[in-house]
């Protein structure tokens, strides 16, 4: 082939790379494992050093949830055609467009909103962008955060809105709920672009005050932005139903494996108003007629919003993000259907309630905010001799992963539909020994 292009060696192709920056030694990398068998042995041995949630009984949640992943989900998204496609046109990649449009549509039904994006990177990004959208729509500067937030998410949002916004964290009130008086006071101070709440909150609480916040925000001319866990929406009302203008969150619970926290997708949903649609940075796929009557085609809605089209004049930016994870969530929702979503929500809420009750009975264990409605996550407080971290160590010795440590005394535990009553009882029994 060198001859075919008239080159003596591949060196010729690098004529524009000045000698001064040429690397004239081999890279200092580990020796290659050229045969697949050796590679499998090497990586397999590394992975074998992990103990996963299939090998232990895990009560970790806190933003990354273990749910049963139906086999059909894996079957579909592992298909070469989905795994290795990219940015083709809606002609030779019709399937990808349709699958993503269907994802948007399924999420739309779940959220009762007409506009849903092709997934952004993750829920952190979705919240951050939703808030900047609210800022662009209202032209205001201040953002109020009113329910308990994951400190990591707060870090991301803080970094992201900083150039144009002031972030105001409104301290919570009694029983893990939002402090409405404090919210009123901040709204009265003016220039509020958005009130941001989560349902459930980072601590698993579905705050009964959530609908009231909508009224407060709207009266002050602010938008109401609500982050939610989509797997709760078969039983918990979708944000739109209680007045949210923008709903956002992470699709990880919808059929995505834990993957050490590596699989996410950020959804942002609004009603179908041009002033909202115009502010999305993400791609939005739309259904369109074609030259042939009755055919469904797909394509980009309002492409000129995006940085792909107009670079820095676009809304924030768009790039490769988490499309396949969106297809995953779509397949998951298609398998679950309305009934499945209701049942899984019921099972998780029932298990959560049972776990709260059962653990609260253990001497040396309290469950703060136990009376509030909870979904999956809940706080556990250790009042005995051991700290939450020490309790976690003791559980680990028993093959149990305890919750995320929040403070010396508190940890955030989590149950889902993968837990049986026997699992929760096993945890309670172990804590009975440990936590006194």
């Amino acid at each position: 082939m060198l001859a075919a292009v008239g080159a003596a060696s591949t060196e010729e192709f690098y004529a524009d790379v000045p000698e001064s920056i040429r690397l004239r030694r081999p890279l200092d990398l580990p020796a290659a494992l050229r045969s697949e068998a050796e590679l499998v042995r090497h990586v397999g041995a590394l992975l074998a050093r992990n103990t996963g949630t299939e090998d232990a009984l895990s009560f970790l949640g806190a933003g990354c949830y273990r749910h049963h992943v139906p086999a059909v989900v894996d079957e579909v998204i592992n298909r070469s055609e989905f795994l290795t496609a990219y940015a083709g046109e809606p002609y030779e990649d019709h399937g990808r467009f349709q699958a993503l449009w269907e994802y948007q549509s399924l999420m739309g039904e779940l959220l009762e909103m007409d506009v849903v994006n092709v997934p952004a990177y993750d829920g952190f990004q979705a919240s951050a962008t939703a808030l900047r959208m609210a800022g662009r729509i209202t032209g205001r500067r201040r953002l109020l955060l009113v329910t308990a937030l994951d400190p990591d998410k707060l870090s991301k949002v803080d970094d992201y809105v900083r150039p144009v916004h002031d972030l105001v964290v409104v301290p919570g009130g009694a029983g893990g709920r939002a402090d409405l008086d404090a919210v009123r006071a901040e709204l009265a101070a003016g220039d509020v672009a958005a009130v941001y709440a989560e349902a459930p909150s980072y601590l698993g609480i579905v705050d009964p005050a959530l609908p009231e916040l909508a009224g407060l925000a709207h009266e002050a001319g602010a938008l109401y932005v609500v982050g939610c866990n989509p797997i709760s929406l078969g039983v918990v009302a979708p944000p739109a139903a209680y007045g949210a203008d923008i709903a956002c969150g992470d699709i990880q619970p919808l059929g995505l494996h834990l993957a050490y926290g590596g699989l996410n997708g950020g959804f942002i949903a609004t009603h179908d108003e041009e002033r909202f649609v115009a502010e999305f940075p993400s791609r939005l796929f739309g259904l369109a007629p074609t030259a042939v009557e009755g055919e469904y085609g797909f394509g980009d809605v309002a492409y000129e919003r995006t940085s792909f089209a107009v670079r820095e004049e676009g809304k924030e930016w768009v790039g490769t993000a988490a499309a396949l994870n969106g297809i995953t969530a779509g397949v998951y929702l298609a398998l679950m259907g309305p009934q499945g979503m209701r049942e899984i929500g019921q099972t998780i809420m029932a298990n959560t309630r049972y776990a709260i009750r059962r653990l609260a009975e253990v001497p040396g264990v309290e469950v703060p905010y136990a009376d509030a409605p909870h979904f999956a996550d809940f706080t556990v407080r250790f009042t005995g001799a051991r700290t939450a971290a020490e309790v976690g160590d003791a559980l680990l010795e028993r093959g149990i992963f305890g919750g995320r440590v929040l403070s010396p005394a508190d940890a955030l535990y989590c149950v889902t539909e993968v837990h049986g009553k026997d699992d929760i009882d096993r945890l309670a029994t172990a804590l009975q020994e440990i936590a006194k």
Partner: protein
Amino acid sequence: WDEPLLFELSSPGERGVLVPEPGVPLDDSLPEGLRRTTPPALPELSQLHVLRHYLRLSQENLGVDLNIDVGQGTCTMKYSPKVNDRFVRDPKLAELHPLQDERTVQGVLEIIYRLERMLREISGMDRVSLQPGAGSAAIYANVAMIRAYFAARGELEQRDEVITTIFSHPSNAACAKTAGFKVITLYPDADGYPDIEALKAAVGPRTAALLITNPEDTGIFNPRIEEFVRIVHDAGGLCAYDQANANGILGITRARDAGFDLCHFNLHKTFSTPHACGGPAAGACGVTEALAPFLPKPTVEFDGTRYHLDDDRPESVGKIRPFYGVVPNLVRAYAWIMSLGAEGLREAAEVAVLNNNYLMKKVLEIRGASAPYAEGRRRIEQVRYSWATLAEETGVHTEDIGYRAADFGTHYWTSHHPFVVPEPMTLEPTESYSRADLDEYAAILAEVAREAYEEPETVRTAPHRSTVHRIRQDTLEDPETWAVTWRAYRRKILGQ
């Protein structure tokens, strides 16, 4: 397939998968206003029907594995070895929770740690963060670090400008803008090289950073890159290297060697993780010691015995995404580099560049095609071609040719806007495709070009053998008709 929408396949009462019933009493603590009253109008389908639907959709797709996927230039559509997917599906990775005790995740931490060290060597940088979820997220992270760096030095108010080039990825401009910087975009000189005079004119005390791709999306390597860096450094700015097109220069030249302070890689491009319909991808940010305090946290460290996560980084920009990155793709990239080693990486680069120059020769033999700029020079990783001549002579545009290619079982995308190169087409063969593949691809383009001259209507009305015919793009721009969801479509178009 003439596959309906999922919603049209719904049949009341069908279930795809059943949920475990709770073995404990139901909970009714939700207050009225927060209880869902109407079930979501999701379709109801049997498991077989869900599967069949998506299998058929999958078959209505191309991808690296199915076609000669050289048409998505700048995207580095290389083969992702299937064995790496096996690692990702291993429950020892797939079922790891990110908040597990470090003692239970030594294997994955070691992989992240080792991958960082390999990418340090490949880039020449001192530290690398693997947290960003994709290439643009890594660009953003670099911009955030630049901002934090100047904020720490008290210079942020003064330095509010970022310089980039028009043939750098749009995310360089867009991320800088999002992070609060003003953007100055340089256009190429007459030869298509980044214009050094324009840089000199733009640079100054307001300059925070230069964000630049090299080779650019034209495939042209900037031979004065060291001078660019020096000019910016002299003005007190930082330089960030967009390494989206690094595939052709692995082991040839490194970001640090040209003096850069920051760089990023797209692991889904250069290091072979699959493109996945547009993500999940994975990004890597490499920085010098001076920028290292600002890296996203946590970092993975090794104390000689055990790997651990270091969250105690007070100057860090904080989190760029949840947890530690798109870990499955980190494992894939690690395995890919391990399978090649230093020699293999360099060979991959050289083969990719050879393929690119071979394909350029074949394409330029086609009537109506040209490769603007840098006349007679070799290109690195891709080439931005132009069908301007053909368009002028036939009225057939680059989009038409791309659509028509779909009728032959392959495709290309045009290029990022704005079309500085008129009627653009960017091809990037990578090292994955063979000479026979490139010959076949060029033959398809030649055939379509022939059609453009001899039967232009065939091309203008393409595709003819695809799943669907020419889409009415106008309906997607009109708020009255766009339909982002089935519920919107039912309401707006079907009037339900």
